[in-house]
């Protein structure tokens, strides 16, 4: 397959979205149909691209000197691409029902579609410069989505988000510069590109650069102490929070970290250094911290957001293990968490959309009124807890396996932290479930009159996600093997 396809899948949503406000839609229906078509078509193209992989790179154009804007589809990238291609159409479908009656939908769907392309750009970037460019763009195109309601707190949230993201990017930029200067090539090469000759005695300096870079990119991955923006951003419409803040944006952060760690600086150079030790600390801390904050939180979406914070640190934990197994663990959690979290977010969104209730203490007895939604929610809760047979367990298993194989005390501590957070997850997820299904004998269902399940456009994605959770949980073999194949070339 021609490499040009990569440019197409990146540009199609961007252009298609950009056209949205210009096209003369006569009805909302046409708008939705058009959007879905664009997204779906692009997903199909992407899947096709994944099946017939374009071998060589596609150079868009050259910046100064050896810096170029170019795409290339490699293992890691295809994982992320696959996640996006599979989740986006569903999320869009969901968004149609959710956004009914919201103001300026066109703008919303425009940026929603554009974001698809930009995120794909991150996934397909061949070198660190391209990735950085799309990373910055992602910040910008998601901003209007967060601001969408244009209420005061939305604006404040978007500001916070912007400051955090751009600030992080500034530091990541420094790390990038070091790669450009001390690396043999800006491209991503398994095992890293650092040129020992150029590094010489400057090892510590480069480690410092790596730490800066890691912290910078980890802002989008909402690692403590840079995690505050994520729950704030929960003011956005749910499709946004779900897709962007549980899948696209934060995963983009994690993805970039994998790139930087495994493909640019190289684990061979980093493993066992003070940088690794240093980075373990915030990661492990975040794993627990996120859960405990989620426990405190009573706003349902913010609770989900905090749980995202902790779950992302699972991924980062896999990353800082800096072993092939660690990468496998990180990747598997990246995939599975995407499914689980988007499902739970959508359930929350369904509740908010149907009833406008946003706080957990308002959910008593919903299990009877919105059974389908809450069954899906229960499944995702169990998956997040890591009940065996659901996908959450598999990724946790892989992470723990990697931790034990790495064997350092901190790694083991991380494994323990995983379990602690699993328990906390159980608490903050199951309390919701129990509330919903067992409000107590004396509960008066009259207060919930007229509440019912949402329409098929919301339920279809949920169902698919639930099925996916079971399938991944029971037959994780092929997936994990594929991931191992990706991680194989790592030293």
């Amino acid at each position, binding site marked *: 397959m021609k490499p040009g396809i990569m440019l197409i899948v990146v540009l199609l949503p961007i252009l298609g979205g950009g056209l949205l406000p210009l096209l003369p839609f006569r009805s909302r229906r046409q708008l939705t149909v058009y959007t879905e078509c664009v997204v779906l078509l692009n997903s199909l193209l992407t899947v096709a691209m994944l099946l017939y992989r374009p071998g060589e790179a596609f150079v868009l154009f050259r910046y100064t000197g050896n810096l170029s804007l170019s795409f290339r589809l490699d293992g890691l990238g295809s994982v992320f691409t696959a996640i996006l291609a599979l989740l986006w159409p569903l999320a869009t479908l969901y968004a149609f029902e959710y956004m009914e009656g919201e103001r300026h939908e066109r703008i919303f769907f425009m940026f929603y579609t554009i974001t698809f392309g930009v995120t794909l750009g991150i996934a397909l970037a061949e070198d660190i410069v391209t990735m950085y460019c799309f990373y910055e763009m992602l910040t910008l195109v998601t901003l209007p989505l967060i601001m969408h309601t244009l209420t005061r707190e939305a604006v404040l949230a978007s500001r916070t988000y912007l400051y955090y993201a751009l600030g992080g990017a500034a530091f990541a930029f420094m790390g990038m510069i070091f790669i450009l200067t001390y690396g043999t090539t800006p491209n991503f090469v398994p095992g890293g590109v650092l040129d020992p000759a150029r590094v010489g005695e400057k090892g510590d300096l480069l480690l410092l650069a790596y730490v800066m870079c890691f912290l910078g990119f980890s802002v989008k991955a909402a690692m403590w102490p840079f995690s505050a923006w994520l729950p704030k951003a929960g003011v956005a419409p749910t499709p946004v929070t779900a897709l962007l803040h549980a899948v696209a944006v934060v995963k983009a952060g994690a993805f970039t970290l994998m790139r930087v760690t495994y493909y640019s600086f190289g684990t061979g150079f980093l493993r066992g250094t003070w940088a690794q030790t240093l980075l373990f600390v915030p990661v492990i801390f975040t794993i627990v911290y996120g859960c405990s904050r989620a426990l405190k939180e009573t706003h349902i979406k913010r609770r989900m957001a905090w749980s995202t914070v902790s779950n992302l640190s699972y991924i980062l934990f896999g990353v800082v293990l800096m072993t092939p197994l660690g990468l496998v663990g990180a990747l598997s959690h990246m995939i599975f968490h995407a499914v689980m979290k988007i499902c739970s977010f959508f359930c929350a969104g369904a509740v908010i959309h149907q009833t406008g209730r946003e706080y957990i203490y308002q959910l008593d007895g919903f299990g009877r009124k919105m059974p389908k939604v809450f069954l899906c929610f229960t499944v995702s809760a169990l998956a997040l807890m890591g*009940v065996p047979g659901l996908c959450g367990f598999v990724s946790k298993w892989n992470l723990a396996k990697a*931790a034990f194989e790495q064997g350092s005390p901190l790694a083991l501590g991380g494994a323990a932290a995983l379990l602690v957070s699993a328990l906390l997850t159980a608490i903050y997820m199951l309390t919701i479930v129990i509330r919903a299904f067992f409000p107590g004998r*004396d509960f008066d269902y009259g207060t919930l009159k007229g509440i019912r399940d949402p329409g098929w456009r919301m339920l279809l994605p949920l169902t698919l996600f639930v099925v996916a959770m079971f399938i991944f949980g029971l037959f994780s*073999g092929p997936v994990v093997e594929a991931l191992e194949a990706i991680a194989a070339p790592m030293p």
Partner: protein
Amino acid sequence: MKNAWILLPVLVPAVTGAALAAASFREHLAGGNTGPGDQKGFVPENTRGLHALVGTVLALSALVAVGGAWLWGGSLTLFPLVDGIPLYFQIDDVGRLFVTVVSLVWLAAAVYAFSYMEKEGDQKRFFGFYLLVYAILVGQEFAGNLLTMYLFYELMTLASVPLVLHSGTREAVMAALKYLFYSLCGAYLGLFGIYTLSRFCDTLAFQPGGSLNPVLAQGNRGLLLAAMFATVLGFGAKAGMLPLHGWLPTAHPQAPSPASAVLSGVIVKSGVLAILRAVYYVAGPDLIRGSWVQEAWMILALATVFMGSLLAFREPVLKKRLAYSTVSQVSYILFGLALLAPTAMEGALLHVVFHAVVKCALFLSAGVLLSKWGITRVEELAGLGKKQPLLVWSYTLASLALIGIPPASGFVSKWYLAQGALESQTGVFRYLGPAVLLVSAFLTAGYLLPVTVKAFFPGESRIPERFGERVDMRMLAPLAVLALLAVLMGLFPGPVLELTGRIAALAAGR
């Protein structure tokens, strides 16, 4: 696929149970009132049909499970669950022992429940989850490797929650949550152990004496011991061992009596089973023999034994009292396992059997008192014995068995436990253990017998008329059977002894 029959006793009740639960849920959606129209599938409307269905399914699957376990045995490998470790069933003596006990108790409790639950209402949900839990337990007992066992262990936790909060009152829900979180906390501690073992053992599949890889284990003993301690602690939570015992006295009394009977009688044993499997069949007893883990374990077990009986002694409410006694009794078993000696292990296994039967009987009788006359406290039943001799006698027999008065069954197991303790090379515990057991036996007598005494010798307090009403046979019969069994097994412990001896010799033999 060879030995596919193993799936039958797991799947059939599971499916039926799920269907029942779904049906009850559908009633919920309809807001409780179920017209004849909105019922689909084979789930019957009237309670009689429901009971018939449950009874047959339970009986059949129990038959298949026990019969199959004894006659055919064998192993069955399904798809790999996570990195190459398959969902794997394998039937060995331990499985046989446990599955027999479970099925027995479950059937008895079921018969009892048919009558009992008519007052409670929402029987579909109850029996649905009742079957579900049974299926899961069978799965856990047939499990052939640690991962499979863990899978069923955690599922069992989740599935048994609705049994606890059946009444749906606020307290019940809170109790259920407490139960859930304690067990999950334990489960995750255990999971840590499983992670470790999966790294340092050749396989997670069960084999007597364990499969620890000495090469890998080299230099990692500290880690391994810590992991083992976590495992014991974690799975100990389900068995109500210190320090994670808190849920038990809260949850058991809240559940409807048949549920609490099986909870106390059987489900706590699944914690025991988990520890047994992890220690004796994966890590191997040699790993922790003589280490700080063993000592800590024994200390915890003994402390639990003592504390449990003490609390039971101080507890006026009958069901709570029985719950506390479960706490202490199950720790007998754990102590027996902790000694890591064949005799002691044998005693432990015996106590698994006996305690299951006895405690079930006790809870059932308590249930009768509760549902029939609303009696919760001991003082209220003065003179019952005059009117309800069968009930009180079976209660008495059961308690005698639990106290361990020869020739009742409890005596045998405790004898083995004490002997095992004395034989074992565990220093001070050789004497401390038996002493504590003895003390707690006295305490047991102290908190169980007063019921009998009050029942038969009311003193001058007049006997309420309502004690005269006859009790439904479906309640009394299983009670009586269990009580009788408790005694008989004491008189003729031969077959059981032979089985446990075989297990112990294989697993704990030096």
